[in-house]
């Protein structure tokens, strides 16, 4: 039997919107069956996973906090992926952003009077560090033709080990009994809260702002045009004044900066100090988010919220239903696989040709 894929003519917007929803429903059915097989009620699991986190002001804030770094990084990655440039090292750019931005926070510890320049400098340095770190694979690609997929991935581990070394060594809190973490930042180095008594911090607003900005840049500027067309037609991008090299450097700079900003926002927002590890894998999860959101900033925002929701719901499921964490992970993997599959089905008409060989 042979399977043929023919591109659909006149892709409908309805189909585009429907395919991830259908994939989500399919993942729900499979997940529900597994939950039932584990002897729990699928209905209760559904409520815990997807409804409970939306039912309280606090958990809504937590969903937003969890989604912010994902949306931020994924928005940057969308620029790369649309231009057919494969930056998969956002995790490293995130870590480097957090490390160098956080370094300012550590250095500013104890300066009296909570000076106003500390926080902007941290954000600037963090963003810049992420951008520079992102430019390493870009430069290697442009000048030496080295595959950016592998170099950017390898640099993740280098960044993680660098942070580990710094947090255990030079940046360790001298009064902290030699435990591996820095001093906690002064108030001047903390992102402010958006609501009195809440947990929502300014990093979330930053993420939303970047998503909006990215939508405008992608849709309304020459650079955005170049990014959008280069995948389909490198020549068209060149006409727009963006050669391959310039575009590669530009999209890596954008995604590195976004990841770096996410890193320093996390450090200055939630964590409030440097630790040997500052990311539960945001940089990798963001790749998934970018694809779930179909490489459009608004779609990414929605996808980031969905992933954040399942993560927080997964914790509720562990607490209330004693469902294992591995189930949440397997569900997220399955969800992405189904969305990618459904996406293909919406792009191509699949024909089965019995008898023929593939």
């Amino acid at each position, binding site marked *: 039997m042979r399977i043929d894929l023919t591109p659909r003519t006149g892709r409908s917007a309805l189909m585009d919107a429907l395919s991830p929803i259908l994939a989500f429903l399919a993942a729900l059915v499979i997940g529900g069956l597994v939950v039932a097989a584990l002897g729990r009620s699928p209905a209760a699991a559904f409520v815990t996973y997807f409804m409970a986190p939306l039912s309280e002001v606090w958990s809504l804030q937590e969903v937003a906090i*969890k989604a912010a770094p994902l949306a931020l990084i994924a928005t940057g990655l969308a620029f790369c992926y649309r231009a057919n440039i494969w930056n998969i090292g956002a995790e490293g750019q995130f870590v480097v952003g957090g490390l160098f931005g956080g370094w300012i926070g550590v250095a500013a510890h104890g300066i009296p009077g909570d000076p106003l320049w500390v926080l902007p400098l941290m954000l600037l340095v963090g963003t810049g560090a992420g951008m520079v770190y992102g430019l390493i694979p870009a430069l290697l690609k442009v000048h030496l033709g080295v595959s950016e997929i592998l170099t950017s991935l390898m640099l993740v581990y280098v960044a993680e080990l660098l942070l580990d070394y710094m947090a255990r060594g030079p940046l360790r809190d001298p009064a902290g009994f030699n435990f591996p973490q820095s001093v906690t930042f002064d108030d001047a180095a903390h992102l402010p809260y958006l609501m009195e008594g809440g947990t929502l911090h300014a990093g979330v607003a930053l993420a939303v702002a970047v998503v909006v900005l990215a939508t405008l840049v992608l849709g309304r500027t020459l650079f955005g045009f170049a990014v959008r067309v280069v995948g389909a037609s490198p020549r068209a991008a060149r006409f727009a004044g963006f050669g391959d090299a310039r575009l590669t450097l530009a999209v890596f700079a954008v995604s590195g900066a976004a990841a770096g900003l996410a890193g320093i926002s996390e450090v200055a927002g939630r964590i409030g100090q440097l630790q040997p590890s500052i990311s539960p894998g945001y940089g990798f999860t963001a790749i998934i988010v970018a694809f779930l959101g179909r490489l459009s900033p608004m779609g990414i925002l929605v996808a980031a919220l969905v992933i954040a929701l399942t993560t927080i719901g997964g914790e509720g499921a562990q607490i209330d239903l004693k469902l294992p964490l591995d189930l949440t992970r397997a569900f997220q993997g399955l969800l992405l696989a189904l969305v990618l599959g459904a996406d293909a089905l919406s792009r191509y008409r699949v024909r089965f040709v019995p008898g023929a060989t593939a």
Partner: protein
Amino acid sequence: MRIVQGALVAVLALGLGGAQAQEKKPGEKLKVGFVYVGPVADYGYSYQHDQSRKALAAALGDEVETSFLENVPEADSERSIESFARSGYGLIFTTSFGFMEPTLKVAKKFPKVKFEHATGYKRAPNVSTYSARFYEGRYVCGVIAGRLSKTGTLGYIASFPIPEVVSGINAFMLGAQSVNPDIKIKIVWVNTWFDPGKEAEAAKALLAQGADILSQHTDSAAPLQEAEKQGKLAFGQSSDQMRFAPKAQLTSIVDDWDGYVVGEAKAVLDGTWKSHDTWGGIKDGMVVLAPFANMPDDVKAQAEATKKAIADGTLLPFHGPVFKQDGSEAVKAGENAPDPMILGMNWYVKGISDTLPR
């Protein structure tokens, strides 16, 4: 205020069907939550904590309800801790050093909830800290190793150069020196708490270079199995790992949190709970040595005697004179190392020839 809060929560719970937050009323079950940094299936640190959760359920039965979150990344733990507090949990154990700042932050918001943070040093009116004097057990192990080593060289697989690990190495060495002043030790840092493959490689390296007894401060049973394979001897870690190496395990330093966890839960139920710091050792049953095995009776007797002397306080592992590596005196003759010195230990005792990584 409490009534208002309760009413608000009730409204939310009714209106949205999924909210779980509630205040504990007299006569209700005490909900006890545990936050683990690793998987409960690690057969080491997190596993051993989960044993105490099960012991708690067994000891207090209907009076308590327990639940846990596993694999919680330290940088992302604030939400995990808070979700317990919001779900009506009255007592929350946060079992890793890296949870220290998040625990304090959440505790500030939930003054009525009691928190128990393991291995940290910062407390609050509703945050207690607890840890175990693992070094006491390591001293006993050192005595056994000093007696049994034929090559005069011991091997030590260490995770990260934090004080708890360093004081363990020192106590092990002091114990060994007490029976064999010329004993040598080789130390390998693997920079991980858990990587069975790397731990096995470290064990092989130590055995190849003449160590005939292994001690480890990492969590997997791989080094024990390697010793067993090569007909050498070793000490287990965190839990009794006899089943992995029946011919090699001499004893194991078992973290026994059962008594402490049950005691704290009872105190909350009785209304007698107060914030305090507990650093329990062999005497308190917090550090337990698995049955001595694979050694001659006279060594066993000496090990038992050492254990008993530490338990009744006649023997303190860091009893002066204790000299640092460079020969300077750390603890004067006749004095004992004060707790803060042990808690912040960042130097090797005399007789260790390696340099401590920083």
